[in-house]
């Protein structure tokens, strides 16, 4: 049942991402990749390799919609790889964490640190790879910062509404 919920959420969030959030422009500065939410909240019960393959799948779908083959895939795989390790370090009873990763299950402070760090990494990989080179480094970093903040706020909003 829990996995059905995850899959339904992935479909809905991806649709929102492609049809709505990808259209936000603001001079190209604000491109919130909110779909990373699905990866962040997935339960950590699957083996790490399977987790990373989920990242590949979600990243590839996003890449096809953005004509950017490989970029979202690289970012998603990295997020999935780091996720386990971060949670293992941050949560005392990691073994008992069977449900989805949310504010209720890991605590507000841990969740904020966990999602903020991963969102920043995810966005940095995407914007640096899209610019492909150091020529526009300042601009890419600015894009990363602004978009990460917006994504983070949207993710927190979702989590708070979701826990209610």
């Amino acid at each position, binding site marked *: 049942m829990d996995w059905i919920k995850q899959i339904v959420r992935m479909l809905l969030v991806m649709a929102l991402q492609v049809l709505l959030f990808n259209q936000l422009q603001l001079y*190209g500065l604000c491109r919130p990749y909110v779909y990373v939410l699905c990866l962040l909240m997935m339960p950590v019960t699957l083996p*790490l390799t399977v987790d990373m393959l989920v990242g590949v799948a979600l990243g590839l779908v996003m890449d096809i919609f*953005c004509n*950017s*083959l*490989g970029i979202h895939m*690289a970012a998603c795989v990295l997020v999935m790889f780091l996720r386990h390790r971060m949670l293992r370090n941050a949560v005392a009873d990691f073994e008992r964490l069977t449900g989805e990763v949310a504010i209720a299950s890991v605590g507000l402070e841990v969740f904020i640190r966990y999602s903020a760090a991963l969102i920043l990494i995810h966005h940095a990989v995407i914007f640096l790879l899209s610019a492909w080179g150091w020529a526009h480094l300042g601009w890419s970093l600015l894009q990363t910062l602004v978009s990460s903040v917006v994504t983070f706020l949207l993710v927190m909003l979702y989590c708070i509404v979701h826990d209610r």
Partner: protein
Amino acid sequence: MQDLLKFILRYGNFLVFLLLEVVALLLVLTYNDYPRSTAFSTANSLVATQYRMRSNVTDYFALKQTNNLLAEENAFLRSQLDACGTLPDDSVRRQNTQGAFCYFPARVIQADTYDKHNYLTIDRGAAHGLRQGMGVRSVTGAVGVVSTVGEHYAVIIPLIHTRSRLSCRFLKDGYVGTLRWDGQDVFHAMLDDVAVHEQVAEGDTIITSGLTNAFPEGVPVGVVEKCTLAQGASYYTIRLRLLTDFKRLRYVQVLSNLHSEEIESLTDGLD
């Protein structure tokens, strides 16, 4: 051997991670310039259908502006038609050396304008006769070139893509230059290869040169906005205001050169 197995078991996840990242980076390296694959791009029917459904809704919000554009184009075409009618039949009509072009109407269902690598997706594909390399124009000016063609959809590389190049000329005297986008903003582009002996003035109109198969001569491209000459340089730095508004692009025309096969067969032998 045992050690190797132990190593793989210990670091298996990390090795899988490395493998996946290498695959992703190879994909980026291979596909970063252009979307070369029909399946893994927005020319993919499944993907493009989502975009078409969205534009089915959002297009309604732009109906008034679309109508205005069409009315303006109708007026322009009618004035050209009248001008044709009044010309004497003998010498003034110029033969188009490029041969005839056939126009397909198409709707833009997805457009990027915020990236360095921007793409457009249109709802016409191989089934409607589109092929790679065809030119695309809007009511107001040149748009780009067809890149990846799916069965019912195609991806276009617009002028506002950092790898896009277009051969252009000055309307007033036919001097040829190359259009290039510097990635700054979607309203402007640069015109390269214009040497200092050419007289350039702000407000000069730039049109397609007709030297490529994609466009006939004379499709409007841009207007010179700023022309500077660096110390000791032999070429101008020319900034154009593009005549196509990529932010509001909804309907385009794909240009099929009816003689392109013949032209290609002639030039292929030269390589």
